[in-house]
């Protein structure tokens, strides 16, 4: 498996970044819970996707795994689909 070269201190640095992002993610969780409208919730979920990409990239540095960049790529591409489904189905001509 390919690895990235990193200093020992860098591992902790990137992990701290990932942790920080995770904390913001938990804050986003609260927004999903509170709402109040469906659109708020959906936007929070989108923020989730973006933050998730950030965490994955930080983790790929911390854990020195190139494959995680692929995961981030897939997440970045696919997170939008839920939004499109939301726009088309919940806010579409039927409602």
């Amino acid at each position, binding site marked *: 498996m390919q690895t990235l070269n990193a200093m020992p201190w860098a591992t902790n640095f990137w992990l701290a970044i990932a942790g920080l992002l995770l904390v913001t993610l938990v804050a986003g969780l609260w927004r999903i819970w509170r709402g109040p409208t469906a659109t708020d919730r959906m936007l929070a979920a989108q923020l989730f996707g973006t933050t998730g990409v950030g965490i994955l990239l930080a983790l790929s540095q911390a854990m020195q795994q190139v494959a995680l960049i692929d*995961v981030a790529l897939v997440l970045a591409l696919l997170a939008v689909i839920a939004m499109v489904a939301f726009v088309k189905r919940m806010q579409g001509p039927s409602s």
Partner: protein
Amino acid sequence: MNLAFDVLLGIALLLCAAGVFYSRDLFRAVVMFIAFGLLLALVWVRLDAPDLALAEAAIGAGLTGVLMIDAVAHLSAKNAHHQGAQFDQTGARPQLWSRILPVFSAVIIFILLLGAIWWRPDAPVSLPDLVAESLPESGVEHPITAVLLNFRSYDTLLEIAVLLVAVVVAMALKPDTSEPEAGNSKDPILHGLSARLVPPMLVVGVYILWAGSYMPGGAFQGGAILAAALVFLKLAGFGIERLADSLLRIGLALGFIVFLTVATSVMIGGRPFLTYPESVAGELIFFIEAMLTFSIGLILFSLFSQAPPPVAPTSSLQGEQDER
């Protein structure tokens, strides 16, 4: 540092699951569910399982989320037609014992599992060593692909059969008179977005498939991405599901046909079922995987697109309402 991150992640995951379960509003549950899929993908990363993270990112956070949104939209759209239909109603107030019994059994389940995890014996057999040992003969470098398509390829064959059966059932469920989906006009924004987004999706799908032979990736993850791209196209108003029925059937079954044919035809050379000749194992596996990716993508998409449109014809409803 590591532990703090994992603990936070685990707690967030549990909170998210609780959020799914205790949301009175169904849509909130769905959004929580999408978030759950994303957190789970992160957990797989922490468990050193990037393959699963890929699959979860594509399936859990992507496809399943869309399926759920679609279903909830279906419920609310139909709800407008059914005056007084029970929507998200969990019935009368339950008795006290029917409150206590589930709590009790859930606690029991948790304690039993806790014990099972805590006092687990050390495994006398180590499959990872065996996998590592046989990896050079498998034709691929990535151990998970080797397990899925060589060592335990029979599981995978049956699994594709499972997917195919799901599609057959979906086809059987489809009403005979399918009506065109209402309001499926092309949205200019979506149209532009899909023109920019779908090509990279397809490229990434193929890349993930190709990467599978030496690093995390493979047919399932690639197929899920392909399916997502197709779903996107359908949402954007491209009528790709209106392919010729027979063509679609062949596409759905192609991966399975190729897999089964290869699995059986190696027996002509006197080898057991599903034994790839070692010299061409890598090429055969890649060929099968490519076909599987195509079929899995089509199957997952098909499971999405066979769903009745949100505004279903209400002709069959008349009799039902009279009954009540």
